[in-house]
């Protein structure tokens, strides 16, 4: 194929510039008082739903399992983050970062504890057992009022989630999962999705990679949970029920199982939709449910399929189109 081939350092420079520009632009817009409070809230919400969807996409889309307990990991992260911030161990940005990391790590530990037994099963059984674990986490939170505030919930959580914090987490999450998927580990995960028995017979430790995917997914779900706590300032266990897991799954499925771009677009569209259809708000969930059924019947791969966006490829296409005559057979470059 006659590709222009942008060199890897140049790709990194382009991507980094775009990311910094996006963060700066978003920061100026959200801090400049140009948006209403509701619009600001939606932007923050979109952020943590992107993290939740992208992290669920790892086991659901790439690994090919169907965990139904994502809200459980989110709950663990939310409570750990909230308790960390309330305790005031650190101050300033140290506290924010510390809380997020603590939330992620504890969630990841839960992910491993749950993943090791759960991943012995597959398909429907895995879906049910993760559902069971997710509900168990909620029951535990409800019944430990001395730590978590029980059914009344946890209040007066410092509101640490602003645009900068949330979207830096979004970018870190997308970047880490993207890099995992482009690495040897990612190929092992995709191989497990395509044929587990064949993968195992190639000498790949399938259990290790499944648990790893689960733990990474739980880590970012935990971070998203902490951001959620830092946005609302109040947590109640019923926020993290089965419906929350289904909402996240819906984003991933509508976007396309196995497409990070799909998860991101899905999160943006489904989360910001209430803003544009205020009059239809009572029909919103009905429309979502119908969409879910119709997508499964007519386009089971989701709206984006497994297509993944790459800035480098887009630039190559545009560049290759205008400058095809100048250069012949650019260096083959598969690093993106």
């Amino acid at each position, binding site marked *: 194929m006659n590709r222009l081939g942008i060199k890897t350092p140049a790709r990194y420079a382009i991507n980094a510039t775009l990311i910094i520009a996006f963060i700066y632009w978003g920061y100026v817009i959200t801090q400049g008082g140009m948006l209403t409070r509701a619009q600001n809230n939606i932007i923050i919400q979109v952020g943590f739903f992107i993290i939740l969807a992208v992290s669920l996409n790892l086991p659901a889309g790439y690994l090919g399992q169907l965990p139904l307990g994502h809200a459980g990991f989110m709950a663990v992260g939310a409570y750990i983050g909230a308790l960390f911030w309330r305790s005031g161990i650190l101050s300033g940005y140290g506290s924010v970062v510390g809380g997020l990391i603590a939330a992620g790590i504890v969630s990841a530990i839960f992910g491993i504890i749950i993943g090791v037994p759960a991943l*012995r099963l597959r398909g429907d059984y895995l879906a049910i057992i993760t559902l069971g674990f997710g509900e168990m986490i909620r029951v535990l939170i409800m019944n430990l009022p001395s730590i978590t505030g029980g059914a009344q919930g946890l209040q007066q959580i410092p509101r640490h989630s602003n645009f900068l914090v949330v979207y830096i987490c979004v970018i870190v999450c997308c970047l880490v999962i993207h890099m995992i998927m482009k690495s040897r580990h990612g190929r092992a995960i995709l191989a497990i999705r395509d044929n587990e028995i064949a993968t195992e017979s190639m000498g790949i430790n399938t259990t290790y990679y499944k648990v790893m995917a689960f733990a990474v997914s739980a880590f970012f779900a935990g971070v998203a949970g902490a951001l959620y706590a830092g946005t609302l300032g109040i947590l109640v266990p019923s926020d993290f029920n089965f419906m929350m897991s289904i909402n996240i799954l819906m984003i991933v499925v509508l976007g396309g199982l196995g497409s990070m771009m799909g998860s991101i677009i899905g999160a943006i569209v489904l989360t910001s939709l209430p803003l544009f259809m205020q009059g239809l708000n009572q029909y919103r969930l009905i429309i979502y449910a119908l969409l879910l059924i119709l997508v499964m019947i007519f386009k089971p791969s989701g709206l984006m399929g497994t297509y993944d966006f790459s800035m480098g490829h887009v630039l190559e296409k545009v560049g290759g189109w205008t400058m095809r005559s100048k250069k012949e057979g650019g260096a083959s470059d598969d690093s993106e």
Partner: protein
Amino acid sequence: MLYVAQFINALQLGSIYALIALGYSMVYGIIKLLNFAHGDVIMVGGYVAIFALAAGFHPVVAVILVILGCTALAIIMEKLAYTPLRTAPRISVLITAIGISLLLQNLAQLFFGARPQPIHIPFPTGSISIGAVSIAYPMIITIGVAVLSMVALNYIVQGTKLGKAMRAVSEDTQAAQLMGINVNSIITFTFAVGAALAGIGAILFFVRFPVVTPTVGAMLGLKAFIAAVLGGIGSIPGAMLGGFAIGFLEVIVNAVGLSRWTDGAVFLVLIIILLVRPAGLVGKPMIEKV
């Protein structure tokens, strides 16, 4: 004496779970589908009962309407959503089932509101006393109806030609088709039977817990489903056994004063059974062929 009363109590609860679990188990046995919307069929049954009674129908007619309503709903569901997905990957069908459950819950909320609605099904009141123990009529009727339904189901599955076809389809769909069995209509029939049992279960459930909300089916369905898994999903005696086991478990957990942990205990049982014996108490372990 308290023990006997609790025992009957557990039997009543268990027979409701068993009736609902049968629907899950039969459908799973035949097309390997976790019908997430099965619990919501019960919720719809509750609203049908409210309207039938409010419209002044005789209670017996209302009960028949509930059973017919549940059956019709399941057939529509199967025809519109599951039939087009017969050859789709199982994960797609599972997601569709979740979608239908969500759709039914939200439609109910739109039409009837989220407010809990009381439902009063006229049932014979009073009780009989055996020694020092008094047993309320609804308890006896519930257990009796459940046992009768299961006997009838057993007859349909084991004694009729339709039942034979059902067993054949669940054993090997393609071979059954080659033998001239209309697989699609057998699957629809299975859905219908499961939903009719859910309709009966709905009546018995709302006699005991007389409040209908749009999400009442979610937790009930989940627990009945756990009962089906516990007994061995796909197995009819397993579903009955699992239903009674979950009923007893809940009553015991409540009786020792841990009522806040009831749901947790049920989920714990699910996790343990899936880890120790995923095929359930009476199910056959599945061997994976390469």
